[in-house]
């Protein structure tokens, strides 16, 4: 720094500090690990490359004499970690980096033995399909919401049916009917939202439907039809009662259709809860209640 004015040095220090603060503001992390052979012995000089799945940017490293590799200044996200070494099969792992430093050891397989093509598998059998995986992920996500909302819907559905017993008789008040109508409306809104997540969940081609899901789907046709008919019949019955008339005609079917709909809905829920239907479940009623509470309250 001979001959450099003190002010310039101070400015440079300040600039460096400011830049480092800006860099520090981005969340970066590190990935390190050890490349090993099938017996756990470190593999030196292995080529390790790390590709960011979002940006496609690739960084490379070489394992040291202890088989160790290290990548620094990585943004969090999904990466493809590809490792290759002489005498070993190239291996690709998917790693999900969080904001904290991560360790990922790589176990390589020695070449020389049979390959998948030796077993008669073709490339289509063995090659991964990221799009199909994304469809599966989306399907599971939507069906989880469907399951949770379906259980939540069961509560106002049951309340609607219970209040219905007191809403249609000769002695009923208009406030009881209003409560019944409000609960019915809430049930319908939740029901169709629940159905949306099942109907719109991606279908996986080439899958033969087996097991309790067949019963669940068959019952959906019954409670689905019932969920359309019940409010229509209910509106007709409500209007007749509001005019001071006895419920007559097709509107009389409102109650029975609602009960069938509720029963089919309950059956659809139970059909998937095989622990409660196949006799495997050994818990008590309070355990079942606890499960229901957990289902409704846990995220």
């Amino acid at each position, binding site marked *: 720094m001979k001959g450099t004015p003190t002010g310039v040095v101070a400015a440079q220090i300040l600039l460096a500090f400011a830049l480092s603060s800006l860099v520090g503001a981005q969340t970066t992390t590190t990935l390190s690990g050890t490349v090993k052979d099938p017996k756990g012995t470190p593999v030196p000089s292995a080529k390790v490359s790390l590709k960011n799945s979002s940006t496609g940017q690739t960084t490379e490293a070489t394992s040291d004499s202890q088989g160790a590799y290290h990548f620094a200044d990585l943004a969090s996200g999904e990466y493809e970690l590809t490792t290759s070494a002489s005498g070993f099969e190239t291996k690709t792992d*998917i790693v999900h980096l969080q904001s904290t430093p991560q360790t990922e050891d790589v176990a390589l*397989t020695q070449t020389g*033995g049979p390959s998948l093509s030796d077993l008669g598998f073709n490339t289509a059998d063995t090659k991964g399909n990221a799009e199909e*995986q994304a469809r599966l992920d989306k399907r599971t996500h939507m069906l989880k919401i469907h399951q949770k909302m379906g259980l939540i819907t069961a509560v106002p559905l049951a309340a609607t049916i219970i209040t219905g017993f007191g809403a249609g008789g000769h002695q009923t008040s208009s406030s009881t009917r209003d409560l019944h109508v409000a609960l019915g409306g809430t049930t319908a809104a939740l029901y169709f939202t629940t159905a949306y997540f099942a109907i719109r969940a991606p279908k996986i081609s080439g899958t033969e439907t087996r*097991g309790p899901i067949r019963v669940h789907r068959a019952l959906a046709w019954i409670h689905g039809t019932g969920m359309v008919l019940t409010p229509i019949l209910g509106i007709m019955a409500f209007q007749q009662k509001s005019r001071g008339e006895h419920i007559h005609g097709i509107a009389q079917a409102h109650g029975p259709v609602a009960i069938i709909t509720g029963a089919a809905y309950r059956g659809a829920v139970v059909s998937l809860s095989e622990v409660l239907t196949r006799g495997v479940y050994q818990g008590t009623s309070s355990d079942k209640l606890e499960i229901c509470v957990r289902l409704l309250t846990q995220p």
Partner: protein
Amino acid sequence: MNASAFRARFLILAFLVVSPLAFGADSQWVLDQSTLTYHVSHPLHQVDGISHAARGKGVCHAGECDFLIAVPVKTFDSGDSNRDLHMLQVTRGAQYPMVTVRTHLPESAANDAQIHADLDVEFAGQTAHYKDVTFQLSAQGNEKRLSGTIPTKLNDFKIDPPSLLTMPIKNDIPVRVDMTWKQQ
């Protein structure tokens, strides 16, 4: 045929017969039949998923054999297509469609009643190493029947245990192996 020609043919024949024994014959084992069964434990119930779709081959040279067994993840059937699709999703079965098992054994192990194998299991994009896994071996004519259990765990493959009724399944998913191998 004169004597020298007969002697030459005899020597060639003798060489062809003896040489494989002297230098270590190349031989192969092929997986003929298999049943692989994973077992999932949940606080409320138990599930078994079965596949008969495994293919396998063992290549032997100089008394040492390399085996590879592979099975598509989607061929495991638990009796419920909905559960199988969830299992396929959670194990990233579309992205990594095969489970492979590799091992290296001495050819002489085929004569033992019990073998101890070090296995490299590749599943869900991860490889796990299982040391000293015990298998029972029995002879059935020209075939060898192998059975045992691989003590696989979900976290060996970085799989988050899926939940049923908000309760996660156990980390242990032992895979029962029953195989019939034929030597070629």
